[in-house]
């Protein structure tokens, strides 16, 4: 079951009921039995004192996509950036969980889209941004373009007592992580005590969410098995263009909403087709999730979570909306009505 953020904690985090992306608050070590052990570990490892912090997850911006079923191009992405910059407290970190760009047949066009993505992302007021690729970014060239902009497709880092792990389940072409990366993951985890808080971020779900919609990672169960000894694991991902929560009894898996067309509930429709564009509700089902650690015993308590849809209030001042309000016809490649 999801752990909703109560009104008080939500306001404390966001300052107002706005949402664009996912805002998480972590207080990983406060008041927890064994906290001293973790605290000492991270202090020795990187000198960082574990403290509460906040971060944002944005996903599936698909820069370059324009046309049915979403004629607004980068409007939602740009609104999301503006929203993050209006948060009452600057987030420590912004995570992007893939499909930064919409794929293009022409490599130069694709590179331009990556550049445009980076240009918009760079407007975010945060000291740190981290990225993983989606299949649109990296499946055809094995991640070459992505690496030229953002470096490795998988890596890890520590931040204020939390170990973050970026996993790449797209650049091998198939929905898989692969044995090399799994061996790397084992080595990466080996130095941590099993009580260390771990956040994995990746593009595709690491479990069979809807295999015949390609919502899975074939060796996801192996990855989760490697993570199984760790007591506090959260997986953040994108790809499915809708919110989703799964507690597999060990780890909590959260999908973020997209910042371009949404997908419907696969349990309610037979075919994988994006939700149609609604002129009167242009950001319908787009947006993000806000989440917060609950109480002082944060490392033991599940993350509090609240999904928030973008509102029209944020829907202004971008090139996409200007074009839309003028009634201009969309252009560009929007030929995929089922790409995720």
């Amino acid at each position, binding site marked *: 079951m999801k752990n909703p953020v109560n009104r008080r904690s939500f306001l404390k985090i966001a300052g107002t009921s706005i949402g664009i992306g996912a805002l998480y608050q972590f207080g990983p070590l406060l008041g927890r039995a064994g906290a001293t052990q973790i605290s000492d570990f991270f202090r020795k490892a990187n000198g960082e004192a574990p403290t509460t912090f906040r971060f944002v997850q944005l996903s599936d911006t698909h820069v370059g996509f324009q046309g049915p079923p979403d004629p607004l191009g980068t409007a939602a992405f740009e609104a999301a950036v503006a929203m993050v910059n209006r948060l009452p407290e600057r987030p420590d970190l912004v995570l992007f969980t893939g499909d930064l760009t919409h794929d293009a047949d022409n490599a130069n066009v694709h590179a331009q889209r990556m550049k445009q993505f980076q240009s918009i992302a760079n407007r975010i007021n945060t000291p740190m941004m981290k990225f993983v690729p989606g299949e649109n970014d990296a499946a055809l060239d094995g991640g070459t373009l992505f690496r030229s902009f953002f470096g490795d497709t998988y890596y890890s880092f520590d931040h204020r007592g939390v170990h973050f792990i970026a996993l790449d389940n797209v650049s091998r072409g198939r929905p898989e992580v692969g044995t090399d990366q799994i061996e790397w993951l084992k080595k990466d985890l080996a130095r941590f005590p099993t009580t260390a808080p771990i956040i994995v971020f990746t593009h595709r779900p690491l479990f069979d969410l809807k295999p015949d919609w390609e919502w899975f990672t074939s060796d996801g169960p192996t990855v989760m098995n490697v993570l199984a000894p760790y007591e506090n694991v959260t997986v953040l991902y994108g790809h499915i263009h809708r919110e989703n929560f799964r507690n597999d009894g060990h780890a909590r898996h959260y999908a973020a909403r997209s910042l371009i067309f949404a997908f419907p509930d696969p349990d309610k429709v037979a075919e994988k087709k994006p939700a149609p564009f609604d002129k009167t509700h242009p950001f319908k089902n787009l947006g993000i999730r806000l989440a917060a650690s609950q109480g002082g015993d944060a490392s033991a308590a599940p993350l509090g979570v609240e999904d928030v849809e973008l509102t029209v209030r944020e829907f202004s001042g971008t090139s996409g909306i200007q074009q839309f309000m003028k009634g201009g016809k969309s252009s560009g*490649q929007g*030929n995929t009505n089922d790409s995720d």
Partner: protein
Amino acid sequence: MIRINGLLITLVFVAAILCYGTLRAIGLDCCRLVHAIESSYDTDMALADDNPTVIKITAEKFDFTPDRIVLKKGQPVTFQLTSLDVVHGFMIRPLDIDTDIPPGKITEVTVTPEVTGTYRIICDHYCGLGHGGMKMTVVIQ
């Protein structure tokens, strides 16, 4: 003589168990192996229905041809998969198949459908902008 026969039977029995255990340990699908063996030897013991039905499927951006097939529950089938352009995927959970189809060769997979229903086979090796819509239907009766 009786003692030797008894020893032989015991050895064969032990070898069979070891072989089965090894196959299980390395994750081979015994049903598929049995069908492969049966299809290799045209013995009087094998029933006609045990010979896999061969179905040829061609993959090309962004379609499978044919895009709909009908299979019979319990009747083994060998898919002969070919790509005409780039690497495609061929994935269906109810038949426990997830393989790549590289161009320039025939990829063979033999299975025995055990569950009736209508299912979707998808390309799960990203092949371009229309990849998300590359699929076909399989009906198991």
